[in-house]
């Protein structure tokens, strides 16, 4: 029921959602993050820590499954170079009712921001820069403790 993936290929939403729906539960929640075109970003490149990243995603999914009664959890994260509008992350959860599915989905996306070893690099016409972490991400993740 837990599926995690780190991939350079585009995220296939139909496939990802089909996997969640196959759990046969009544409530499906999902979150899809897209690359924003903020400040003239032309490309966004995600670097990660192979091996540790997959384990971190698995740990987040397992923690969600331990906290809520879930039929399925899927976390997919893209790495490599992407353009604005492309999907960068997908989280999907299945539970008997909506409240658990929505809460578990929200939990996973908050934890991903602080628990998984990804680093973002933005390229604009003015040059390239590494994205700094946001204090709001830390406080969102701590809110679940």
């Amino acid at each position, binding site marked *: 029921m837990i599926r995690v993936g780190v991939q350079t290929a585009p995220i296939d939403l139909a496939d990802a959602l089909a996997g969640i729906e196959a759990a046969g539960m009544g409530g499906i929640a999902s979150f899809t993050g897209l690359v924003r075109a903020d400040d003239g970003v032309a490309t966004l490149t995600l*670097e990660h820590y192979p091996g540790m990243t997959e384990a971190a995603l698995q740990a987040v999914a397992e923690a969600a499954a331990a906290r809520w009664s879930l039929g399925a959890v899927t976390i997919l994260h893209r790495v490599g170079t992407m353009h604005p509008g492309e999907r960068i992350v997908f989280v999907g959860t299945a539970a008997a009712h909506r409240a658990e599915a929505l809460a578990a989905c929200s939990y996973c996306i908050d934890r991903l921001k602080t628990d*998984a*070893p*990804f680093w973002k690099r933005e390229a604009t016409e003015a040059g390239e820069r*590494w994205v700094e972490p946001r204090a709001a991400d830390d406080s969102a993740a701590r809110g679940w403790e």
Partner: protein
Amino acid sequence: MAVRLLYFAWVREAVGIGEEMLDPPPEAATLDALIDWLATLSAGHATAFADRTRLRAAVDQHFVAMDAPVAGAREIAIFPPVTGG
């Protein structure tokens, strides 16, 4: 004992390589002490490790604090705060 050092994001760019096998001296017993020693290895290392507040680390693929012991570690990664999702 030799340990595999991994660097990511701007730490990797400053050091100039993504990984290296090193045999740190016995006094490099915590991450802080190890980073002090790493900073002496080259100008690139010195630049990468100049501001400790901008660094995070993992020992054998688990996030740890900078005062964590490193004895017996097989793989130590040093990198900026993470920015995924």
